[in-house]
């Protein structure tokens, strides 16, 4: 069984972990909402022009 101090530390780290994940998740959602909408418009504009764009390169996108 954990002592009070150990429990307090565990709780603190858990809250911090959740907060950081949430912060990045919200930022990711905002970026995704913007990027996906732009990409959809660009893609469909190309289709209207009779062109099917080449698939995206995941490596290039992530800078790997």
């Amino acid at each position, binding site marked *: 069984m954990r002592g009070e101090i150990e429990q307090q530390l565990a709780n603190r780290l858990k809250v911090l972990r959740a907060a950081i994940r949430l912060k990045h998740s919200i930022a990711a959602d905002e970026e995704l909402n913007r990027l996906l909408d732009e990409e*959809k418009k660009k893609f469909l504009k190309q*289709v*209207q022009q*009779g*062109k*099917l764009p*080449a698939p995206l390169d995941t490596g290039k996108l992530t800078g790997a």
Partner: protein
Amino acid sequence: MRKLRILDFDIENRPLSYLGQDYTTAEITAIAWCFDGEPATMTCVLLGRDDPEQMLREFVKRYDAADMVTGHYIRMHDLPIINGALVERGLPCLADKLTCDTKLDLVKKGPVISASQENLCAMLGLRKPKVHMNTVMWREANRLTPAGLKLTAERAIGDVLQHMELRHALVARDLLSEPKTWRP
């Protein structure tokens, strides 16, 4: 980048029987089609000259080969009528297909401009003319006389030629919303 094959098409139809009140059922009298950027593929099949079932089969071949089909009001008029004709003859229904309908996909415009193909072309200053038909000409056409068949073919091909120019102009001006999948 892959080039997509876009099939531009139009049908002509005549009333065949009364449904009730003044409503009538439709019978296809012509289908004209052409792949965008491939003028040699322009074709027009005609009731009274061609076998009705073969007309449908020839169209379906091109429809299936297309990545997208386009026309004016096709999702509400041409495609349902073609599908109905297929059903009537016991042929398979059209497959789901990506469509660009230059009437239904036009940006919101309110009661400011007319969305007819002819008026849109005039507004955009396009050159391809509308092949006009008056009632006398339509009656001749729908009687499937030799002269009537010629009128129908000119009208259907003229509409496809004009529509190809119209769609290009609308795309260039960003006046069309995204293509939509049509399901029979």
